[in-house]
């Protein structure tokens, strides 16, 4: 048996992961442009803002497609770990997000809940879930 260094399955997987990373960075850039551009770059002019919105949506969609391609390239154990983590993240975000949103109504927090806090929660929840999943099948 000859194990080539140019492992086709692994190489293809790495290529898809890099593609996903590239689109994720592009989406972050597009989001930053939409968040700060109107105030600091074009003084709330409508046309550039609409352009930034369109760019953000198109790049975001491309990122989602890259994610789908990445998942389809994973082997079955990796896919199980990924989907378990995604499911757990969805549940945690749903439960904690709805609870967090009600905290202001209940006057337990003095500020308005921000969606960015949910993003942090999703990232942490997903990262921990993937870590635990990998440990379980190590």
């Amino acid at each position, binding site marked *: 048996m000859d*194990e080539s260094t140019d492992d086709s*399955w*692994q190489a293809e997987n790495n290529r898809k992961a890099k593609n996903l990373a590239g689109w994720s960075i592009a989406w972050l850039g597009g989001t930053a442009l939409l968040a700060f551009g109107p105030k600091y770059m074009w003084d709330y002019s409508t046309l550039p803002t609409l352009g930034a919105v369109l760019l953000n949506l198109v790049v975001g969609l491309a990122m989602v497609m890259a994610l789908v391609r990445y998942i389809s390239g994973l082997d079955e154990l990796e896919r199980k770990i990924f989907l378990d983590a995604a499911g757990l993240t969805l549940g945690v975000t749903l439960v904690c997000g709805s609870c967090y949103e009600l905290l202001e109504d209940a006057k337990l927090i003095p500020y308005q809940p921000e969606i960015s806090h949910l993003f942090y929660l999703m990232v942490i929840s997903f990262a921990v879930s993937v870590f635990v999943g990998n440990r379980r*099948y190590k």
Partner: protein
Amino acid sequence: MKNRLKVLRAERDWTQAQLAFELDVSRQTVNAIEKGKFDPSLPLAFKAARLFGLAIEEIFLDDAAS
């Protein structure tokens, strides 16, 4: 589900990485299957059977039957 993957691999003097390469999966997946932590899908079990030239039931053993 128990399996003889580790024995069959050792008989051929293959590493987990080599077996993973042949099966188009990660080394972690081969390791998890060998340790009985993860049960492979039917297509992957067939692939392993083809690779070793054996029937599926000669590699993967039903826990309930033993």
